[in-house]
């Protein structure tokens, strides 16, 4: 649909002019609240019903590759599925990466040769291709209002 895309692009332009580093920390006024976006993220295929899923939401490729997320969430795990809502995002393009902190020690465990020993995944179920999932595979559009992502954890 052409119309919503144009509208999203216009919104992005207008938000870009307002942007500050602390934008997401500012209380939302009513106009901004109308523009804010939420993403409901559902996790399926959880093998171990323990610990928590650690979620990082990124708005740039550089940040996704190793920088700071715009939001970080911790989602308790008690069964084969879990979900959370990433609230108050600016509409735009984002990618999510997660790992399942199965043992609850607050970090992504690796074996002595540096390979992950806890499950990890990304938005769009972007595959690992001899390395972590790529931004190009994981990025998705977030429109004003409600959005959804489903991530399978093997």
């Amino acid at each position: 649909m052409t119309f919503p895309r144009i509208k999203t692009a216009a919104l992005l332009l207008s938000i870009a002019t307002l942007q500050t580093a602390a934008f997401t920390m500012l209380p939302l006024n009513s106009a901004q609240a109308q523009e804010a976006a939420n993403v409901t993220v559902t996790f399926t295929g959880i093998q171990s019903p323990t610990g928590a899923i650690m979620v990082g939401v990124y708005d740039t490729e550089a940040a996704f590759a190793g920088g700071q997320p715009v939001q970080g969430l911790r989602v308790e795990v008690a069964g084969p599925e879990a979900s959370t809502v990433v609230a108050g995002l600016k509409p735009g393009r984002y990618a999510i990466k997660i790992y399942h902190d199965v043992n609850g020690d607050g970090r992504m465990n690796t074996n002595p040769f540096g390979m992950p020993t806890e499950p990890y995944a990304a938005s769009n179920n972007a595959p690992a291709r001899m390395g972590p999932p790529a931004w190009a595979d994981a990025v998705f559009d977030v429109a004003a209002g409600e959005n959804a992502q489903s991530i399978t954890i093997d």
Partner: protein
Amino acid sequence: MNRRSFLTAAAAAGFAAAAFNPDVLYAASAGIGDWTLGVADVEADIAPQALRLVHGRAPAGLAGKLYRNGPAKFHRPGGSVSHWFDGDGLMRRYAIDDGQVSLSARFVDTAKRRADTAADAVVTAGFGTAGSKRASIGGADDVNAANISVMMAGGELWALWEAGSPIVMDPDTLETRGPKTLRPDLKGMPFLAHPRVDPDGTVWNLGVAGRKAVVWRLGADGALQAADVIDLPRASYLHDFTATARHLVLVLQPWIHDRLVAPIVDGYSWRPEAGTQILVIDKADLSRRRVFETDAFFFFHMGDAWEETDGTIRFDICTSPDPKFAVKGARAMVEGRRPVLTASPDLRLISLHPDGRTRIERAGLAAEFPKADPRFAGLARTKTASLGYGPGDNPFHQSVAVRDWKRDRVDSFDFGPRHLLEEMVFVPRPGGSAEFDGWLVGTGINLDAKATELHVFDARRVAAGPVCSWRADVALPISLHGIFAGA
């Protein structure tokens, strides 16, 4: 962990960055030798079938299961493997009982095989196959072909690769249960295809990643006893190692991983000027080590090592002048071309003396797949069984030999050019205890019968020919390594 360090770790663990792999033209060319039956595809698991006795009489007391593993699916419509070592592992089970043999075989149900089957193309990277960007690869076990060898661990049958986990199978049904994680923090660590087993059943193995290795120690029940990471002087290709009762012996050949490219085999450089280093490590204290130096050679396989009373360490090894087979020969084979090598591997006995000298004794025997009496693993012994080559176009083996290092003689039997032989394993005669008092049991393809055969030799009278041979209704491609699990 950033992307670069992930890639480095991944490559060091045995695979490298994906790149598009052009398909391999296979067997379309006219006039190829029928030895290519040794690298032919198996399309489906083999239901249990009885083998037919075609020669001799089954020896009384020979009973148990011969398990053999090796690549058996190479070609797919959308793209094939580029290297013999990258075919899907097919586990074969020959059950011998009361003079009867039953054969069954099942592919190891790996993530790689599932991904390649779904794509109808070999999309998964391997040792010598670059793979496709379509492949989803999150760790070593996503590329694990489980196609090199096999071991028993407690009641489990493990299909072994060398850069990923053992893959657990049911020893009776050959059903795949999945990758073995010996401890949660060691998930996905590499486990070489050639563990060394002490006479008491203790299993020693390595897993190599560049200049680091994990030293595995398992009990006779297959339970993990220790896993320690050690540093290596160089990032050599290490397919096999050996052990005495007191020491681990790592031969660090000058084929060194120094480039992050796909496929992994192309990331190694042959540096003969650097010579070969032999690292000897105390089993009781892995920090106690000694490095011996000798001339450059390439190798895949070693025999068990032992120590003389003066501390001299001896082991047998099949060496080549260079890694041409690994780089080019094994690629040519899956294209139906005969490998062109500098020379066939030959059997040598290496002695590491307490004063630091290294001595290499040549058996004068072109040989591969050295095997000894496992009851003498780590202990002084005199004999080594191996396979030899013929003069023709067949790149596989056609003869069986036992070298006696003490008497300086070779006891051998040549099947001739119409046979493709597979590794022989030693099976002790019940009640016997002397070295090689028992049988050599191995398989191979009879090209005229177009069928796989199972041969049994008296290990002390090889020149007399097989004591008996059985024949299957099917020709299975040449496998790499096997074990014999007693009844």
